[in-house]
């Protein structure tokens, strides 16, 4: 049952210029949203508007354009912060989720992690929430431990309890898996972690674009996300934290803008969040992200979520009957983001992607930057269809027809 009015799919599609495109003479069916989403004209226009009307550096020029650019850039910070229930002073603009976790690795990790400490992450993480901790563990001679998964592909709470007995310094967990779609109860994980004194990092790359997120309610120390997966431009994202914690940790990059005063032998740091935004920042894309937040707010994140849940339900129902279809991860849309990983008989995902491409259908095939999870699933690769607000049942029907065609070609 829909709790709210459904979205106006046709009106939304008209906002995305790329959806008019044909691929191999077919309507583009874009189902690779977990990799990156398409951009509405409102976002594209915000970029063009900035470059054509008020392009200027921020925070340092007192002229008119500089003030307009600063206002737009800081306005985008406020929008993005409000969108995830955080305070603007606690939101650092980064290049995206990967830079955000690496910021924590350096600024927090170098200061607080000691030899022999334990760091914890999980088997369902994207490499960007594994590799930084591996590097940190190596440098500090700390141990990295992994929370294992249940057969359904959810976090194994017993395994989490077990690693928490080590009193880890850090627990890093994804809000939503980019492979299985599993939505983790991160508030619970963070509360368990906090009880043993661990700092917490939540990877929100697949959460913020798809459902309402409330940083304050989750209660984590750091929350990371990427703009390009939420209808915004590439090259912009955020690390969200509390102002006091950002004040306590060390700077990330050194250079202009992040300092208060520079002497020959030392420097003092700018206030947060500027202490972490060294050099000329990504002004245009931050403004573009602000426009994406406006767009999603206008549609309503509750509606985005309901739309994707309905689509997920429809997809699982219609693909389950396709010969050879094998799905990975939770099946209940309530516990699952709009991401669906599967295999089709012995058709390798790359062969499947080639066949679907011929039909104008874009899916992702491969290890999805989650090799430990692939090993846990005991597959070398999966195919992945992932949704956003402009996808509809017609896209799923096209996918189904494409899978059936692949099944015929491969004589499944």
């Amino acid at each position, binding site marked *: 049952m829909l709790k709210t009015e459904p979205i106006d799919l046709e009106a939304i599609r008209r906002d995305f210029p790329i959806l008019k495109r044909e691929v191999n003479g077919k309507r583009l069916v874009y189902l690779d949203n977990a990799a990156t989403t398409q951009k509405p004209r409102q976002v594209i226009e915000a970029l063009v508007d900035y470059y054509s009307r008020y392009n200027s550096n921020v925070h340092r020029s007192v002229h008119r354009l500089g003030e307009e650019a600063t206002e737009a850039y800081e306005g985008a910070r406020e929008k993005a912060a409000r969108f995830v229930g955080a305070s603007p002073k606690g939101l650092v603009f980064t290049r995206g989720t990967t830079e955000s976790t690496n910021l924590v690795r350096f600024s927090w990790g170098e200061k607080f992690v000691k030899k022999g400490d334990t760091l914890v992450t999980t088997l369902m993480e994207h490499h960007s929430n594994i590799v930084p901790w591996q590097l940190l563990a190596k440098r500090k001679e700390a141990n990295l431990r992994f929370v294992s998964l249940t057969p359904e592909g959810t976090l194994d709470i017993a395994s989490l309890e077990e690693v928490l007995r080590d009193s880890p310094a850090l627990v890093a967990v994804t809000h939503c898996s980019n492979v299985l779609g599993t939505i983790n109860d991160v508030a619970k994980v963070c509360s368990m972690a906090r009880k043993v004194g661990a700092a917490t990092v939540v990877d929100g790359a697949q959460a913020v674009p798809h459902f309402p997120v409330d940083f304050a309610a989750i209660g984590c120390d750091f929350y990371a996300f990427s703009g390009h997966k939420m209808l915004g431009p590439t090259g912009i994202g955020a690390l969200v934290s509390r102002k006091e914690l950002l004040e306590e940790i060390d700077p990330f990059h050194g250079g202009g803008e992040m300092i208060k005063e520079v002497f020959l032998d030392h420097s003092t740091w700018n206030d947060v969040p500027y202490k972490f935004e060294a050099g000329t920042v990504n002004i245009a894309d931050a403004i573009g992200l602000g426009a994406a937040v406006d767009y999603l707010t206008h549609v309503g994140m509750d509606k985005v979520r309901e739309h994707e849940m309905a689509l997920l339900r429809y997809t699982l129902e219609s693909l389950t009957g396709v010969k050879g279809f094998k799905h990975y991860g939770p099946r209940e849309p309530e516990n699952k983001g709009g991401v669906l990983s599967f295999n089709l008989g012995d058709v*390798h995902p790359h062969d499947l992607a*080639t066949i679907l491409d*011929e039909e104008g259908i874009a899916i992702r095939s*491969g290890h999805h930057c989650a090799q430990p999870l692939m090993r846990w699933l005991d597959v070398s690769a999966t195919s992945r269809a992932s949704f956003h607000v402009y996808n509809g049942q017609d896209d799923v029907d096209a996918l189904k027809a494409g899978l059936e065609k692949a099944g015929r070609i*491969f004589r499944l």
Partner: protein
Amino acid sequence: MSSADIYREVVLDYYRNPRNFGKLEHFDISSHDTNPLCGDEVDIQIKVGNGKTIEEIMFSGRGCAISQASASMLTELAKGKELEWVKQLSKQDILGMLGNPELGPSRIKCALLGMKALKTGVYGYLGATYDGQDGTEGSR
């Protein structure tokens, strides 16, 4: 050209029933290569006869139909040939072997993975270095 032509019956047959699949107990050349984009892997082992012919050759690996079928077909083609023959082998030979499918740049790398492993191994044995100057370069 459509995907039905890429995945011809013979390609699917080599994918599902790869010839010369496995490991040699005694070998003189062993070469491993991967295509990190796809996660395709190919291992090739060769027993050299009289210091100059491919007496026995086996491959193992996992990955997409194109990479695995192509590697398997290549082992059949290479068996009994002189090592020097490997130097003449070209991208066109491999594509011809597969029935000249129209492959995009990312999938061509799948098709050429076996050749790349073979060339790297044989060139090394002959004291040369394979520089990838025949279309297999850049598969990283």
